Every structure is written in structure tokens, then in C-alpha cells.
């Protein structure tokens, strides 16, 4: 368990490095869609919510997990769709060019 923690920490730090490297010179037009896309990814917490709501245990905990699923799903579904709507709009215009 303790060894695992340092491994998880490694993973956390490495992923952060990747995050830092990935975003470079984004043109201002993309700031909002990028923010919204990243926001949708942060809804990954839905995976945690599934585990909490679906595993055995105290009902209170499971209902809290249920609430977490609802909120996280809104974030995920809404987030990806709204980002797509924004980007579609740019795309369409660019194609006309």
C-alpha cells in the first residue's frame, strides 16, 4: 500500500508534466473551446462516482455516489457536446473559405 502511493505520486507528477507540455501557443479563438474541452475531461470523476455508487456499502454513501454520478454525467455529456457545438461553428466557417 505504501509503495503504491509513491507510484501513484509518480503517475500524478508525470501526467502533470504532460499537461504542461501539451498546451503551447493556443490562438485566442481557441481559448474558450479548449477550456470547455478540458472541463469535460475533468468530468472523469464520473469513474469514481460509478465505483462509489455501485459497490456494496452504507446506503448513505451510495446515494452520495448517485448524486456524484448525476453531476459528473452532466459535466461530461454537456461539456463534450457544447465544445463540439462551438468547434463545429468555427469549422463550418472555415470550410466555406
Amino acid at each position, binding site marked *: 500500500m505504501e509503495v*503504491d502511493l509513491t507510484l*501513484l505520486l509518480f*503517475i500524478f507528477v508525470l*501526467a502533470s*508534466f*504532460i*499537461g*504542461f507540455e*501539451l*498546451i*503551447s501557443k*493556443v490562438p*485566442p479563438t*481557441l*481559448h*474558450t473551446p*479548449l*477550456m470547455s*474541452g*478540458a*472541463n*469535460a*475531461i*475533468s*468530468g*472523469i*470523476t*464520473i*469513474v*469514481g*462516482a*460509478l*465505483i462509489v*455508487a*455501485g*459497490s*456494496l*456499502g*452504507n446506503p448513505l*454513501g451510495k446515494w*452520495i455516489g448517485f448524486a*456524484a454520478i448525476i*453531476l*459528473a*454525467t*452532466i*459535466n461530461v*455529456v*454537456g*461539456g*463534450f*457536446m*457544447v465544445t*463540439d457545438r*462551438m*468547434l463545429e*461553428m*468555427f469549422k463550418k466557417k*472555415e470550410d*466555406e473559405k
Partner: protein
Amino acid sequence: MSVFLPETILNWLPDTIQLFYLVATAFFIRGVKLLNSPGTARKGNQFAAIGMMIGVLVTLFDQNIVEFELIIGGIVIGGLIGLLLAKKVQMTSMPELVAVFNGFGGAASALVAWGELARKPEILSFDTTGLVSIGLSVFIGALTFTGSFIAFGKLSGFISGNAITFPGLNMINIGAMIATLGLIGYFAFDPTNSTLFWVILGISLLVGVTSVIPIGGADMPVVISLLNSYSGIAAAMAGFVLQNNLLIVSGALVGAAGLILTNIMCKAMNRSLSNVIFGSFGGVAGGSAGIRDGDKNVHETSAEDLAIQVAYASKVVIVPGYGLAVAQAQHIVKEVATKLESRGVQVKYGIHPVAGRMPGHMNVLLAEADVPYDLLKDMDEINPEFTTTDVVLIIGANDVVNPLAKTDPTGPIYGMPILNVDDAKRTVVFKRSLSVGYAGVDNPLFYAEKNQMFFGDAKKSLQALNEALNEV
């Protein structure tokens, strides 16, 4: 879902899930990378969505998950709400919607940590790491939740966009955050003390409010981006609670990417992040502080007068700003432009990178009105063209054409690159008064010899101009 699988592959299940998590991670990384450039951004978003789908589907096979009623119910309810919101919202309210989604994400992470704590029958089954992680997810998640909703309120006008603050509030906020970290440490030490948990949750919710309230409404896009980074970190912390790789990796990814993006957004406004968070800039100085120089000379123009000028011009540039969004004048602008074009006038749009209140605000708005993409010129493209322009129509823009950005080293916008509209033969400003814009500084352009003011709501003024053009 694992019950449906044959015994033989159950042994491999945990490893297989991890491998799929790795695949999902790769999709996220690729997705964020593609989101970086205009040509590939849409594909990037789709990649990320696929990654999410993989993550969710695979998790359903987790052997700990044995009951599916709540899961199905939650996903259906949440999915429908998300779908509705995403479909129905107007393009111009995107920033508000992102704020709301982000708040939900933060709340979900806090709930995951709390739910895990409440679910486990024996609170002592958590070790120190687990307890600290729970505390941190709740703290960051709850703060993101309330902070995002205040940001939403400010953007949509429910809460005053002004910076609501008093001296020392920043210090109190910082103090409260440090205190919360201390309490989390104490909670890890004495997890049975449930009041402690409630206190942590309470302070976190409160700090979210008090640290966003003092920030001016126009800085909200930056704040949302920062809160987005927080919600990533909260998800990563929830990952530590559940010892789940995918949460840790994706959360850290978004956390770091969001931080960098926040920084880039600040730079585009020529501000520093700490200036945004602690500066209480924008809004306070707002109001009508700019009218003090009312005794200076201003030339007014009328719809008829202007119609003649533009109808016989050979090149007209339209510079939209925040006022265009307020007046919802994007469609009428396009109508006027089409009318001019049919008369042989060359029309282009000059888009400043931070015109409006969110990055790309003007592009989205004009795209909605079907303005052809190739007429939208960004700052570097349009600036050399002003010398050959007859009339510039400045519609609800103010700071982005303020020459003080070049000349007044003490002003708050000094150093911000602006659109050089004064190179043109004539400029016409559409706004309701002589009052200041977002940055709260007076604009000498209004009093310039070459400039004319067209007072009134942008939409109404443009409608008048549109009609007058029929008479010319």
C-alpha cells in the same frame, strides 16, 4: 458487469481494466494536443470523448461494482440534463454554461470522496493517505463548486459584475485556505471526529464564494479557466482516495493544462494571474467615471449622415466589441455589411484577441450571424490595412481601440496591443454614452478630430443606419 463474464477471464480482469485505462489516457492526451490548433480542435474533442467512453465502459466491469440501479439512473438523469443544456443554450451564453458544468464537476469530485468515506463501514479502514486525499478532494471540489457558481452568476448578471470587496478580504481568504489545510491534517489524525469533516466542507464552500466575489465580472473567463484546473486536481485527489489510475492521470492532465491555459489567457489581456485574482480590477472603476472630460469636444453623427459616408466609401472596416454582444447586434451588422457589399464597398471585420468578454467571443458571435470566416481578420492582419480604410465602424468596442494603451504608461491597459483605427480616414464609434469600458479608462479616441460618435444602443443605431442606406 463482471458477473456476466466467464470465470476464466476474471483473473485477468483487473489488469485488463488497467490496460484500457491506459488506452483512455492516450486518447485524452492526444485529444488535448489536437485541441491546441484550429484545424484539429474538433477531432481533439472527439478523441477526448472517446477516451471518456472507454473509461466509463471499462469501469462498469470493475469487480467491486455489483449494483447497477443507481448507476443507470444517475447516468440517464445526468445525461439528459447535460444534453438539454448543451443543445438549448445560446452561443452567446457559452461561458456561463462552461462555468456551470465546471461547478458540477468539482461538486462530483467532492461527493465521490465524501461518498467513499460514508460508504465504508469502518472509518478506520482508511489510512493517513486516504484520509488526507478525502480532505483535499472535498476542499478543492467544494471550492470549485461554489466558485464556479459565483462566476456563473456574475457572467449572467444575477450577481453584480462589480468587484465586491473590502480591504483585507484577500488576506482572510488566504488565511481560511491555510486553516483548511491544517484541519485536513487534523482530520487525518482523528477521522472519527465528524464535526471536523463538516467544518472542512463548510469552510471550503464559503471560500469558493469569498474568493470569486471580489473579482470583476469581466475577469470571469480567467477565473473559470483556473477553477477548471482546480476541478482537474480535485478529480486527481478523488483518484488517490480510490487508488484509481485513470482519475489521477486525467485529473493531473487537466489540472496542469488548465493552469497553463489560464496563464496564456492572462497574457493575452496583458495581466498577471495574481493581478486577476487579487487585483479587484474591472467593474469598480466602471460606471460612468469617463464623463468627467465632458467639456472636450465630441462630433456626433446621425444615421443619414453616416449612410452617405459609408455608401460612397471604397473600404469599410467593422470593429466589434463587448457592446455588440450586449446589444445582440450581430445579425444587423451582417445585414448592413451585405448591403454595403452589394454597392461595391469592400467590408472587413477587425477582431481584437480580447474583444468581448471571452476569448473568441466576437468570432462565435459573428459566426452565429453567418459572417463569412475569411472576412474576420485578426489584429496583426488588419492593422496594416487601416491606412487604406475610409471608415471604421467601431461597434460597442472601447478598450481595444484605446490609444492610451500606447501613450499612457501609468494606465491599466498600457502595453496591450490595440487596433490602430486612427490610421483610417474616419472612425465612427457606436455606443450609448461616453462612459468607459471594462478597464475603466477614458478613451481619447472619442474626442479625436477624425472621430464621430453615434450614440445609442448598437442594435438600434445599426437598424437606423440600415434603413437610411435604402434612401441613399
